[in-house]
């Protein structure tokens, strides 16, 4: 490796290396960002395919396609892959691409570690996916892997699952450390914290959440590992432990985790809406404080996932109040977005369409979240499709639409080409209709009493399930269009200007499109 150091002084300002080692060995934030995004999309297709299996089985009552055993594996893997494989890496990819360009940094603060963070992910998912082919099958206990179903009663592959989670955790923690170090240390002169774009702010706070809770996830899977293989009794009452302990530790991670999946989307939307409203973001400072408040509150609400496990009344009340409180800062954000649009000059290119749909549909998901937060009512909603509807509304038109909006917004900067606007709008409308058709009826199913995680259901749930499956197929098929649009845009298309969006603000638009391999070697001066 010393060769590198010797040569580095001579070869300033060079492009990417040739061949596949470019990708294996790269330390470039743009390369790594692209790899994250590609990996994430591959996982989205895989997780989505599993969702298609779920929806196909639930198309009608009765068992048609898969056995219950396999169905449970699909549910579990779908949840895990979407959360850890699709959404989180997509945001890390966006962070890698955009944060250095937005704050005027030459790269991420710790570039080699950055590469490692990425490559650990395919390794972790290789292990996770390989469990599908092990004797006894893949994890089948839900993405929340409650003990003792996952410990005493888990399939042998659980141990592999645990190590896969460990590797993912290492990857996320290092990725987050990198983001924090970059933001805190590599801002261009004059870029004060309160001048940072909101996307950077939300990522700073997301990274903090990641570092705070991923180790806790590592802790809980380690306890599982010990219970399974070394005879401890953390989650076994026979030895003085408690299965509910698992849930407390898991959700201490799990609830902040759901904000990890939404805060960067908040950030991206806060860039996009002003750009297409041609008007500055309303209430910048309150947006920042709101994100901070959401993040802090997210640490004290975890037990709202456990209202029915029998926690003492005082705890139940505390967690109910704390959870409901989150609606306040989140509301501030929603109101600010609306106020930004108010009296702007709006236009509706694909990024804006996705961003507006994000605001509306995320709010609907937030409303159902608030309903779930009301503890007595949650006794009826808990573990029914009402919950499934809630979280798909915050995750699909929330996280996923946020990612689509970001992708369309920044694709010209990444590739140097404009994407095909007509196709992109088609993608939007088909996704919008398909997604609502798939997930809105789930509210009705849940309220009528359909439990989640079941491969077969009573007859009164038949019709809405069929509608939902049709919507899901439609939404799923539409995503192939997205793949096509992106590939087309990478390969060619109308040349993009340095600043293709009239109202866009920010350092990234001062760079040419496509952004050169190395940017801001000398930091820009910010007034």
């Amino acid at each position, binding site marked *: 490796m010393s060769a590198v150091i010797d040569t580095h002084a001579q070869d*300033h300002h060079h492009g990417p290396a040739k061949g596949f080692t470019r990708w294996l060995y790269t330390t470039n934030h743009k390369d790594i960002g692209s790899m994250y995004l590609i990996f994430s999309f591959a996982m989205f297709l895989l997780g989505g395919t599993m969702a298609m299996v779920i929806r196909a089985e639930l198309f009608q009552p009765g068992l048609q396609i898969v056995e219950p055993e396999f169905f449970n594996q699909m549910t579990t893997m779908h949840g895990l892959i979407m959360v850890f494989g699709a959404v989180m890496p997509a945001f890390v990819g966006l962070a890698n691409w955009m944060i250095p360009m937005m704050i005027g940094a030459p790269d991420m603060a710790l570039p080699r570690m950055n590469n490692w963070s990425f490559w650990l992910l395919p390794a972790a998912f290789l292990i996770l996916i390989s469990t599908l082919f092990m004797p006894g099958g893949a994890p089948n206990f839900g993405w929340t892997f409650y003990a003792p179903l996952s410990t005493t009663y888990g399939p042998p592959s659980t141990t592999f699952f645990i190590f896969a989670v460990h590797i993912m955790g290492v990857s996320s923690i290092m990725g987050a450390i990198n983001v924090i170090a970059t933001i805190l240390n590599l801002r261009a002169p004059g870029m004060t914290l309160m001048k940072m774009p909101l996307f950077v702010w939300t990522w700073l706070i997301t990274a903090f959440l990641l570092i705070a809770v991923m180790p806790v996830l590592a802790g809980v899977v380690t306890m599982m590992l010990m219970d399974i293989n070394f005879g401890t009794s*953390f989650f076994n*009452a026979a030895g003085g432990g408690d299965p509910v302990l698992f849930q407390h530790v898991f959700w201490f991670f799990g609830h902040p985790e759901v904000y990890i999946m939404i805060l960067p989307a908040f950030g991206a939307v806060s860039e996009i809406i002003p750009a297409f409203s041609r008007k500055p973001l309303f209430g910048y400072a309150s947006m920042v404080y709101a994100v901070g408040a959401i993040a802090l509150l997210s640490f004290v609400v975890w037990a709202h996932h456990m209202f029915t496990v029998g926690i003492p009344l005082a705890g139940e009340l505390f967690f109910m109040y704390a959870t409901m409180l989150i609606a306040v800062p989140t509301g501030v954000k929603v109101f600010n977005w609306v106020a930004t649009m108010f009296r702007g000059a709006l236009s509706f290119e694909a990024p804006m369409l996705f961003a507006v749909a994000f605001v509306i549909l995320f709010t609907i998901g937030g409303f159902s979240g608030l309903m779930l937060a009301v503890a007595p009512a949650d006794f009826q909603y808990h573990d029914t499709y009402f919950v499934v509807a809630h979280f798909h509304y915050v995750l699909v038109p929330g996280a996923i639409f946020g990612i689509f909006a970001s992708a369309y917004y920044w694709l010209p900067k990444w590739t140097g080409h404009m994407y095909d606007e007509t196709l992109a709008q088609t993608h939007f409308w088909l996704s919008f209709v398909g997604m609502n058709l798939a997930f809105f009826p789930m509210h009705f199913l849940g309220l009528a009493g359909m439990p989640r995680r079941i491969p077969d259901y009573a007859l009164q749930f038949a019709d809405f399930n069929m509608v939902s499956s049709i919507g899901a197929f439609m939404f799923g098929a539409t995503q192939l269009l997205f793949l096509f649009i992106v590939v087309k845009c990478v390969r060619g298309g109308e040349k993009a200007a340095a600043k293709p969006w009239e109202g866009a603000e920010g350092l990234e638009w001062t760079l040419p499109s496509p952004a050169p391999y190395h940017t801001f070697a000398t930091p820009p001066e910010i007034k």
Partner: protein
Amino acid sequence: MATNQTYYVPEQSKWPIIATVGLATTLYGVASIMVNGSQGESTSGAWITFGIGSLIMAYMLFGWFGTVISESRSGLYSPQMDRSFRWGMSWFIFSEVMFFAAFFGALFYARVFAVPWLGGEGDRGSSNMLWEGFQATWPLLNNPDPEAFPAPEKIIDPWHLPLINTILLVSSSFTVTVAHHALKHENRAKVKIWLAATIALALIFVAVQAYEYFEAYAHLNLTLRSGIYGSTFFMLTGFHGAHVILGTLMLTIMLIRIMKGHFTPEQHFGFEAASWYWHFVDVVWLGLFVFVYVL
């Protein structure tokens, strides 16, 4: 492209991908050892996988750190780089704190909630119906199901070995600080002595801890299998012990680097990182001593 004057962005590096392969292979091996073992199958293949993985890891560690050290010594690292490392190390330590927090949380939950409930007190006290004859105590010297989980006969007395260990670790935190001051004053001989003393204290600590484990297993029936007391006891002290060993390794490497003449009074972040880590390990021990042993 970054230059020395601004911010050094390293060229392509093979180490991360090697680290990935190494880590994944090692863990795959470990998992296979456990799974095959529990199913009564042969574990030799799994051990080989594990061995290969570990070798790759070792190669990677030497290579990667070697690269970083030589970069540092060739003056590529600006003060801004140094700050990145500091942020990196601080947040890494914070993540470690949260990892231990999960285990402390488990300990508190078991003591304050689960065990009393099982013993018939509090909100879920009717659970005692399922465990006739079970009495809640802490330390837990009888388990709800004594057949499945035979309880420990006695627990470790905090005022013998653990107290010695506390003294050892606290003084090692002190010695490493002295070494640090010496380094700042470019007093190499003194650095060597005090750093060596720190490492010696650390090694004695590990030895005492090992003896304590031996006692627990051999004479007290305090084991991983002896219910929640043993579970939390060994998880907390075990992971702490692992961190002590890791910290000792770091300090040893620093000693070697000092001997080789690395570091300057101004630039010695590697040393500082190791000593931060060491203080963190020390603080965790104090938590352990109070909550695991004494209370």
